[in-house]
C-alpha cells in the first residue's frame, strides 16, 4: 500500500501485487458484473447536457469540470460500450470504444472515491433520470476488485473484515457498551438471548459519540421495550457498501439480520448513520429475495414513531433549529418527514436551510470521503456551502441525524474555526425526555 501518482500527476493508491493487466481485467470483471438492463438504460441515455455539474457540491465548490458527476463514470461507461452495449461487438471490431487502460482507472480513482459522496443530488438534477450515484457505487465494485481504492478506505475494509467493525473487535463490544452505560448511568442490555429490538451502532458511536449508545438505551428503557445490543451483530455502518467490496457488504448485512433473527427481534434499529440505512434497508433484499426477515428502521424513524405514538413525552426546548438532511436518509432514503416531526415534538421552530429535504447539499463527507484524508481539501471547500446556508438560516441550533455528517461538519467547523456545534437528533430527544 503506497501512494502513487500517474504520469499525469494524479495521485492514487493501489493495493495488492497485481500486474497492470490483471488489475485492468479485475476492474473490467467488476464493472461487467454491473452491466444489466438497469445500468444500461442509464448509460445509454446521457445527452451530455452537463446539468449534473451544478448539482454536485464538489463541482460547485471548486468549479473543476473533472467533478462533473457524469465525468466520474467515464471508464465505467467506456467499459459498458465496449462489452455490453447493443453495439458492443461492432465497437470492439472497429475500435470505437477502446479498452479502458489501467492508467485511466488509476486517474479515475480520485473521481470515483474522493470526489463522490454518493449523495445522489446529481440523480435528481439529471433530466434523463440517470441515477449517477448508483452507477458510481456500481463502478466502485470494479475498482475494489482491481485494488484501486484509497488506502484509508482499504484499511477500514481490512479492519472490518477482521473485526466485524472498522472501529473495534467484536470481543470488545460488550465492554464498550457496559462502560458507556456506567459512564452515563444507564442500564444497558447486551447480548440478551431474546429481545424485540436489536439496536445497532456506527463506528462514530464506538469512538467519538459514545453518549449516543446510552441515549437510545435511555429511550428504550423509558418505553419499557425489550431490547438489546449484540456482539454478534452490532456494526451497522457498512464499509463494504461504501468501498465497493460486495463480499464484505454481504457479510456485514447478514451478520446484522441473522442476529436479529436469532434473538427474535421484530425490529432492527439502525444507528444515526446514513449509509447504514442505504446498505441495510435498501440493499439487504439482495440476499433475502426482496423480503426482509425483520423490520429495519433508522434511528430517526424510531424516534418519530415513539414520539408520535406518545410513548415518550418530550420537554419543549423552545428554540430555533436548522436541520441538515443526511443524503442517504432523506434524498436516497425517503425519510424526509420523520426528523421534522421529531423536531416539532421537541417544540423547536425549524428554520430550513435554503436547500433542504430532498435537495439538501451533502455535508461533503459521505460515501467514505470523510475517512479518506486525501479528499480533505475539496471536502472543506464543499463544507463552506453548508456553512453559508446555516448562517443564512440563522437558527440557534444545528441538528442532524447522521454520525458521519456530524463528524464531517464538526471537522469543517473546526477547520474554519466556525463556532457552531453540530448536534444529534437522538441526543436532543434523549436529553429532553419528560418524566
Amino acid at each position: 500500500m503506497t501512494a502513487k501518482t500517474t504520469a499525469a500527476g494524479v495521485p492514487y493508491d493501489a493495493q495488492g501485487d497485481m500486474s497492470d493487466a490483471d488489475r485492468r481485467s479485475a476492474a473490467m470483471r467488476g464493472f461487467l458484473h454491473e452491466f444489466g438492463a438497469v445500468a444500461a438504460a442509464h448509460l445509454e441515455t446521457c445527452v451530455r447536457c452537463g446539468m449534473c455539474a451544478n448539482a454536485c457540491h464538489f463541482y460547485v465548490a471548486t468549479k473543476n469540470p473533472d467533478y462533473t458527476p457524469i465525468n466520474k463514470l467515464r471508464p465505467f461507461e467506456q467499459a459498458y460500450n465496449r462489452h455490453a452495449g447493443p453495439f458492443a461487438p461492432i465497437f470492439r471490431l472497429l475500435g470505437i470504444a477502446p479498452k479502458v487502460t489501467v492508467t485511466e482507472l488509476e486517474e479515475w480513482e480520485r473521481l470515483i472515491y474522493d470526489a463522490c459522496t454518493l449523495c445522489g443530488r446529481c440523480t435528481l438534477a439529471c433530466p434523463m433520470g440517470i441515477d449517477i450515484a448508483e452507477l458510481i457505487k456500481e463502478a466502485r465494485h470494479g475498482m475494489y476488485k482491481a485494488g484501486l481504492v484509497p488506502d484509508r478506505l482499504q484499511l477500514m475494509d481490512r479492519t472490518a473484515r477482521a473485526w466485524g467493525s472498522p472501529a473495534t473487535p467484536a470481543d470488545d463490544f460488550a465492554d464498550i457498551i457496559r462502560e458507556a452505560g456506567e459512564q452515563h448511568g444507564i442500564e444497558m442490555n447486551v447480548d440478551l438471548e431474546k429481545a424485540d429490538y436489536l439496536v445497532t451502532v456506527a463506528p462514530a458511536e464506538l469512538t467519538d459519540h459514545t453518549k449516543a449508545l446510552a441515549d437510545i438505551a435511555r429511550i428504550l428503557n423509558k418505553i419499557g421495550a425489550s431490547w438489546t445490543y449484540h456482539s454478534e451483530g452490532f456494526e451497522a455502518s457498512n464499509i463494504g457498501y461504501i468501498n465497493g467490496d460486495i463480499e464484505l457488504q454481504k457479510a456485514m448485512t447478514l451478520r446484522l439480520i441473522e442476529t436479529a433473527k436469532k434473538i427474535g427481534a421484530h425490529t432492527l434499529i439502525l444507528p444515526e448513520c446514513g449509509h447504514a440505512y442505504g446498505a441495510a434497508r435498501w440493499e439487504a433484499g439482495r440476499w433475502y429475495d426482496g423480503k426482509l426477515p425483520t423490520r429495519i428502521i433508522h434511528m430517526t424513524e424510531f424516534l418519530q414513531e415513539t414520539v408520535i405514538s406518545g410513548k415518550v413525552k418530550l420537554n419543549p426546548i423552545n428554540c430555533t433549529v436548522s436541520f441538515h438532511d443526511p443524503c442517504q436518509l432523506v434524498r436516497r432514503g425517503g425519510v424526509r418527514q420523520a426528523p421534522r416531526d421529531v423536531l416539532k415534538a421537541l417544540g423547536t421552530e425549524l428554520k430550513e436551510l435554503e436547500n433542504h429535504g430532498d435537495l439538501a447539499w451533502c455535508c461533503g463527507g459521505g460515501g467514505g470521503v470523510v475517512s479518506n484524508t486525501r479528499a480533505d481539501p475539496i471536502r472543506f471547500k464543499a463544507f463552506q456551502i453548508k456553512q453559508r446556508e446555516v448562517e443564512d438560516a440563522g437558527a440557534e441550533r444545528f441538528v442532524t441525524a447522521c454520525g458521519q455528517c456530524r463528524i464531517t461538519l464538526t471537522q469543517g467547523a473546526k477547520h474554519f474555526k466556525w463556532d457552531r456545534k453540530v448536534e444529534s437528533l437522538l441526543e436532543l430527544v434523549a436529553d429532553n425526555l419528560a418524566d
Partner: protein
Amino acid sequence: MTLLDFARGPALEASLFIFVAGVIWRCVGTLLLPWRLVRVEPRKGASSPWVAALKGVLVKLWPYDTFAKSGVVQFVNGYIFHAGFAVVFLLFAPHILFIKGVTGLSWPSLPNNVIMMIGVVTAASLVVALVFRVTSPVLRLISRVDDYISWFLTFLPVATGLMAAAHLGLRYETLLSLHILSFCALLVWFPFGKLMHAFLFAFSRAVTGVRMGQRGAAI
C-alpha cells in the same frame, strides 16, 4: 434519376430501414440484458412500481427550481429547441404528409409562416446550444464526437428546410432534395448516437422512478 427522386426514393427507404432497425436493435439490445435488479422490500405505502415508473418519467419533465436556475441555458434553451423541432417536424403540412405516407397517421397542420418563425427560433436555439457546448468548460470536457455529429445532423434538416422554404441559394428542388437527404442522414445516425435518448429517456427515468419510488424518496 434526379437528386429529388433519389432522396424521395432509395435514400429515404434505406435510411428509414436503418432507423427502424437501429432503434429497435438498440432498445431490444439494452432491455434484453440481464436485469440485475436489486430486490428491495418497498417502504410501506410506497406507490406501485408502475406508478413510480410513470412518475419518474413525468416528474423529470420539469427540473427542480434550483437546477432550473443553475442549468438555465440547458433547461430553457433545451425546451425551446425540443419544442421547436417537434412543432416544425410534426405540424408542417408537408411533414405530416411524409409521416402519413409512412405510418398512415395524420393531423392538422400550422400555417407556413408560423412554421417558418418557429423554424428560425429552433435554428437559433440550436446555435445557442452549440455555442454553450463549446464554451462551457464542463460541456467541453464531457462532450464526445457523438455530441457534435448529433448536433450537426439535427441542425442540418432545420437549416435546409428553412432554406428550401425561403428559396435561398439553390433551386427549390435541389434544396428540397438536400433537405430530405439531410433528414435521411439524421435518420441513419439516430439509432447510433445520443439522439436515441428520445426513446431511451423513458426507460432511464422509469428505472430511477421505481428505485426511488420503492424508498418513498424523491425522483
